[in-house]
């Protein structure tokens, strides 16, 4: 297999509503990533787009519409889409382009413009459900989080305050992220006293809808070595989908995330993730999801993540920094574009470019993960410093 390196990352600010169109956001993120890599669009052999539902942008086949903003016009261009899993799946798709020999430089772009939906991005989420079994009940997406969170809390006897701690940590971490939408210094009580949305989910447990785009430049080792001495390699990838029948499984543990993680660990030859991973960016659209996903990624035992969080292990200066970017909870949640705070963040952390967000002790191996569909998709990417 040809080795693949990351040469640059880019992202727009994340906000509830940006003036820029999807194309324009894609362009800004792409430009930034190319600049960091020291490359121009003409050096790019192929482009991968990651974007979630067309219903957000309000354009059918939106990948086709976005392609010139993402630098894809006249090039081999593909769009992948695995729900919320897209954020980390898109760079995996970029990996194939180079590892297969089909490209030497691949531009990976992720875009989401959620603000176009009227009256609310939630209206688009109404169409993710099974039309016969679920939609007649007029569900809200928050319901499935609430149902999953309740199951997780009940099975392990977890207190709400131990979950709220994640929201406090991530929103505080986000104070150091220049793109952040909801960075804040909060207390656990602030979270516990925030508006009840769908019990047990409260307003401050949730990441916001956002507009934004992000981009990464991937290149073959050969190309990368000509441009930099500080190489960051893609080292392991995994992706896994569970059955559509989400009401037929126990929601307390994300087996599909574990499936994707095992695939990635095998590829990266990681036998003991708890010891070998230095920094992690699990998907945190809700505070409990960070904990759920730490367990799914086998970074701790089932039910142990809230304890590690309480003990400070997951703080930026802890033993296992988790979501040092500020995550979706603090920086924002433009679905696919959260690639910027998952995959790009791990790259910046390993390359020592995270500045104020930099985790100490010279991290060598990092992992990021995204989650999506009807609580059924896991995508996992491991990077390693050269």
């Amino acid at each position, binding site marked *: 297999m040809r080795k693949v390196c990351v040469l640059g990352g880019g992202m727009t*600010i994340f*906000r509830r509503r940006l003036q*820029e169109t999807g194309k324009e956001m894609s362009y800004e993120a792409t430009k930034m990533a190319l600049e960091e890599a020291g490359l121009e669009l003409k050096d790019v052999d192929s482009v991968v787009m990651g974007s979630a539902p067309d219903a957000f942008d309000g354009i059918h086949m939106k990948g086709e519409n976005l392609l010139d903003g993402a630098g894809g016009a006249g090039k081999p261009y593909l769009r992948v889409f695995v729900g919320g899993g897209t954020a980390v799946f898109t760079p995996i798709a970029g990996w194939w382009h180079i590892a297969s020999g089909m490209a030497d430089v691949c531009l990976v772009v992720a875009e989401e413009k959620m603000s176009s939906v009227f009256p609310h991005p*939630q209206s688009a989420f109404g169409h993710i459900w099974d039309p016969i*079994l679920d939609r007649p009940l007029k569900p809200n997406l928050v*319901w499935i989080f609430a149902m999953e969170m309740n*199951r997780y809390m009940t099975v392990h006897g977890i207190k709400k305050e131990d979950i709220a701690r994640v929201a406090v940590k991530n929103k505080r971490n986000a104070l150091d992220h220049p793109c952040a939408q909801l960075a804040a210094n909060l207390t656990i009580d602030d979270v516990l006293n925030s508006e009840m949305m769908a019990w047990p989910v409260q307003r401050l447990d949730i990441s916001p809808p956002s507009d934004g785009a992000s981009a990464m430049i991937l290149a073959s080792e050969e190309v990368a070595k000509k441009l930099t001495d500080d190489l960051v390699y893609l080292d392991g990838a995994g992706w896994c989908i569970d059955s559509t029948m989400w009401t037929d499984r126990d929601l307390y543990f994300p087996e599909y995330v574990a499936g994707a993680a095992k695939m990635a660990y095998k590829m990266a030859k990681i036998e003991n993730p708890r010891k070998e991973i230095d920094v992690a960016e699990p998907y945190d659209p809700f505070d409990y999801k960070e904990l759920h996903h730490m367990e799914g990624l086998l970074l701790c035992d089932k039910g142990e993540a809230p304890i590690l969080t309480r003990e400070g292990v997951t703080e930026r200066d802890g033993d296992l920094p988790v979501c040092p970017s500020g995550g979706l909870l603090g920086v924002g949640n433009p679905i696919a574009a959260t690639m910027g705070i998952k995959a*790009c963040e791990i790259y910046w952390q390993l390359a020592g470019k995270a500045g104020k*967000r930099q985790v100490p002790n010279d991290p060598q191996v990092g992992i990021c993960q995204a989650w999506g569909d009807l609580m059924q998709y896991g995508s996992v990417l491991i990077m390693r410093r050269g």
Partner: protein
Amino acid sequence: MTKPENPKGVELSSKQMKEGDVIVNKWDPRVKYAWATGEAISRFLEEMKNGKLIARKCDSCKRILFPPRMFCEECFKPTTEWVYIKDTGKIETYSISYLDKDARRITDPIFVGVVSIDGASEKMGIMHYFDETTKEEISIGMPVKAVWKPPEEREGAITDIKYFRPLKEGEE
């Protein structure tokens, strides 16, 4: 140096949108579907009209699959047999929602959750509403029973069950 440096983007407020400070382009897409329900779900909906829940059995793994499907996703083989199951079950998880489908606030919250149905294989169930219970009473593991619409109001839909209520003592 903190990456990303100088990120771009111009934030708009909802006030700017509402007051017409920015031009807004609106489109109301005409997108209408009539999904073929298929063999398994057609029968499932027919039986809902009769006030019954029906499942499919996989001969290979012996699971009773609910909601019913014509193939078993574990064995990747066609399922073989129709099996009536009960209209009672157990709450696997639930939420009490103060949001409607468009994220608008509602004062009378919706009790919603997943019910695993008695007679189907373990954990197999559907999402539905709960009623005749309170925030204090409802719990994971609570036995429940379907409350059906009167036969003349049923139309072959998941909503032919109005909701699930707590199972009373001695009731089946």
